[in-house]
């Protein structure tokens, strides 16, 4: 069973509590249609468990097949450095069909971030090392496609459906109780 090699920490983008009884980690690619499909499902799972679930998103862009995935990941990290990671993350997935460089700049503007600064960060590859380090940590943890989920450090190999994710998390919470 593949296990998460990089523990969840304060360096991560976490929704909810990183020390919640259950922590779901997603390795995702903003241009991957399966990740786009999983996006609203994760939201429902988060709503279902409330405070008992923390959620972490890490980058795993498949650049050879998704040419805009890297720029999207770096844009989300740029937004994160300016306190708007989740707004950007959500904005990209909610507009995945029109993902492009102009769309990323437009999203930044809508979030009150500087388009010029984002453009400069993408050109200088300011956030490339952060994205790469997520990617390598994922490869070493047995990420085998996108999205790959880990629940409290163990790879979840089931289909990323609402029912299956909830069942796996329920099982884990039951063990803890």
């Amino acid at each position, binding site marked *: 069973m*593949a296990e998460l090699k990089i523990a969840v920490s304060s360096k991560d983008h976490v929704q909810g509590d990183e020390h919640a009884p259950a922590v779901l980690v997603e390795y995702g690619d903003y241009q991957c249609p*399966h990740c786009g499909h999983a996006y609203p499902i994760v939201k429902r799972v988060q709503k279902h468990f409330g405070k008992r679930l923390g959620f972490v998103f890490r980058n795993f862009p*498949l650049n050879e097949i998704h040419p805009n995935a890297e720029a999207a990941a770096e844009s989300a990290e740029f937004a994160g450095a300016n306190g708007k990671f989740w707004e950007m993350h959500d904005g990209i997935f909610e507009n995945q069909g029109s993902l492009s460089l102009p769309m990323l700049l437009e999203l930044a503007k809508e979030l009150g971030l500087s388009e010029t600064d984002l453009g400069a960060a993408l050109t200088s590859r300011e956030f490339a090392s952060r994205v790469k380090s997520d*990617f390598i940590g994922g490869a070493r943890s047995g990420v085998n496609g996108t999205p790959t989920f880990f629940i409290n450090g163990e790879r979840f190999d089931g289909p990323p459906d609402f029912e299956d994710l909830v069942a796996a998390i329920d099982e884990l919470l039951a063990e803890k109780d």
Partner: protein
Amino acid sequence: MAQLLSPGSLAPDFTLHVTPDQKLSLSELSGRPVILAFYPADWSPVCGDQMALYNEILSEFQKYGAELLGISVDGVWCHEEFAKDRHLHFPLLADFEPKGAVAKKYGAYRDGEGICERALFVIDKKGKIAWSYCSPVAVNPGADGILQALEELPK
């Protein structure tokens, strides 16, 4: 599930087509680690399939000086189109004639179905198998086992 050649055995040499007019022998790569990734078939209908994943991780494999070879029973023309479509930057070998002969030598052939197992081998620079792993055919094994095996190779 077939019985894979296990660590410690000498990796059997082979020569297979890598393009319609080029062949590659394992022995040509002696002196550097080699990753053999046997897989069932080109064109599995998911994004981030096993070969696409390894393609993205290639630079990590290369840090260990390792060569990655994908092997399936698909023919050279099929491999060529698949590699082009997925922008693969490593060779795919055609274990096509006699079909599956190399996979059989490695214990990585599924007789009833006539395809390769999803089997991984890391071969050290002296040509000995350092690590092998057979994944259930429907499960993409990822790259964690390969990376760990490369890390544990004697320098």
